[in-house]
């Protein structure tokens, strides 16, 4: 019985020896929080090279502004400024007690207001059917036909679907038309594999479309070997007629990687505004001793030529952007330009 007591005693010691086992916990001071955040980005963020950012200069500017007397609000503003510099919407900081801030998102409210699915439904579309692609309630996915035109229409607000073959059913509905307008304005991205599957229904063969490398070392240019991604024909349905992709500044992430696939096809034209230029997958959630959390980009996506579109985005063949007053005047100049282009270029009406 003495031995049992000894065992219990040892266990009780172990229950209380966190510092001995794990080491001293990170201290929650503004200076340490700054150092942890800056170092984590320095060691793991994937786009310093592609975007030509000088992260050391951020340290030089902001480190002197942080002391252990810096308030939470002041530190929050400093962190906001630091990640704002990266202009990367896959990078954000979040505080349960203060706020949420995503880098590169300053213009999002304006761009959201320059697009109206209701206006499209009221003025430009007919045979409208809502698509239930996921269980999310606030997502909008629509198939339709342009009023009085032999042109099909698809709107996706994200690149997500429970059934990755849903595009076969969509093309059974609208694939008889002479052209399709594929609207991914205000599209917030999703799953690259779903994007590849969607694009596969429009593919004319196998093409190398991009490579992906993940940051894996202390230097800003330390990356894994590139993984190549190809576009190829997917599914039962295949559409080989003119396709217009409509984009705006919010079109981001998996929507942009999907566009890599589409742009490999001959009959595809992009109309609208330049996309966000944020391709990388994001890191896991990261943590600071003060309870703030953040995430950041960890990869670089390169075109087969080695060129990066990070921070640049997909530039449209025809640049056109609505203003808020256009929407208020019940006009969507982007879709009107797409309809005109299909007539001018292919005689489709």
């Amino acid at each position, binding site marked *: 019985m003495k*031995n049992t007591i000894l*065992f219990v005693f040892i266990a009780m010691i172990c229950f209380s*020896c966190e510092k001995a*086992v794990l080491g001293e916990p990170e201290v929650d001071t503004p200076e340490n929080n700054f150092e942890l955040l800056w170092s984590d980005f320095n060691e793991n963020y994937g786009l310093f090279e592609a975007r030509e950012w000088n992260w050391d200069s951020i340290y030089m500017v902001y480190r002197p502004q942080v002391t252990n007397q810096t308030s939470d609000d002041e530190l929050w503003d400093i962190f906001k400024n630091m990640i704002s510099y990266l202009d990367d919407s896959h990078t954000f900081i979040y505080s349960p007690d203060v706020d949420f801030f995503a880098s590169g998102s300053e213009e999002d409210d304006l761009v959201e207001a320059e697009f109206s699915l209701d206006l499209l439904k009221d003025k430009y579309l007919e045979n409208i059917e809502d698509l239930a692609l996921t269980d999310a309630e606030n997502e909008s996915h629509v198939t339709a036909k342009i009023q009085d035109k032999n042109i099909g229409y698809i709107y996706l607000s994200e690149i997500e679907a429970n059934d990755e073959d849903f595009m076969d059913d969509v093309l059974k509905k609208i694939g008889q038309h002479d052209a399709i307008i594929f609207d991914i304005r205000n599209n917030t991205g999703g799953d690259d594999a779903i994007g590849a599957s969607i694009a596969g229904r429009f593919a004319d063969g196998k093409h190398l479309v991009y490579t992906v490398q993940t940051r894996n070392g202390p230097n800003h240019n330390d990356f894994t070997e590139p993984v190549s991604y190809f576009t190829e024909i997917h599914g039962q349905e295949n559409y080989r007629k003119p396709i217009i992709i409509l984009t705006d500044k919010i079109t981001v992430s998996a929507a942009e990687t999907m566009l890599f696939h589409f742009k490999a096809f001959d009959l595809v034209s992009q109309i609208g505004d330049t996309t966000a230029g944020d391709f990388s997958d994001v890191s*896991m959630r990261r943590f600071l001793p003060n*309870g703030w959390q953040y995430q950041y980009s960890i990869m670089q996506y390169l075109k087969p030529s080695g060129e990066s579109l990070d921070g640049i985005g997909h530039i449209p063949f025809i640049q056109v952007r609505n203003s808020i007053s256009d929407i208020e005047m019940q006009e969507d100049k982007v879709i009107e330009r797409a309809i005109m282009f299909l007539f001018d270029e292919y005689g489709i009406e």
Partner: protein
Amino acid sequence: MNKKSLLLLLFIVPISQWAQSQDETKFPKNRIGVQVGLNNLLFKDLVFSPLNYNGQGISGTVFYQRIIKRRNLLTSSVNFSSTIIAAGDISGTRTVNQKFSVELNYLYCLTSIKNRFNFYTGGRLSSHIDNTSFEDGDAITYFNFHGLSLAGRFDYHLNDRHQLISTMKIPIWGNLVRPVQTGWDNEFFEESGLATLYNGEFVFIGNFFRIEWANFYQYKLSKKIDLTFQIDIQYFQTSKPALVKMMKTQVSIGSNLKF
């Protein structure tokens, strides 16, 4: 070990084995048991977070033991634990650690002294899945290991009813599966989550360290049933690809059926 010790050992072991074999029929050969318990986990994984985590959870074990020739033991078990951990009092850090393991042990009875003290040594083949997930996958890390261990066991029969058993297992070689520093979420979510169970690196002890020490108190309730009380201490550490340290302390109770 000098020559005298070696000769003594070579002499004592066969004699004691022979003595034990004369007495084997007295013991039930099979034992099957269930244990449930509470555990405390200390956790730090720099791939996951720079913070120190701790928390409490539940655990369960089902095991089978068979006495085979000359008191040698063949044991197998399935173990599970689920622990909610957090970084001190920092809000929003609630994280779930889950461990699952299966193992098969062969223990050779080195010697038995008056049927009161038994010493065993042997090996273990085991598979450990250890997954830590924040908010259903917004951050995940893992420490999976599949391989061979050295195992030792000491039994002490206080009297007919009371017995103490202590076992220690130290993995020495196997497939260590850890996330890469960043970007593995792409592998996990977009390629195959299953790959994170086995797609690792074969390593020897030194590249990692695990030690599992279990201490049982066993009370003979009847000829068929024992009651058990167990304290486990397990420690895991590696620097691949960044430092991770875990220490699990567990208290369990259970029952064995002998046949």
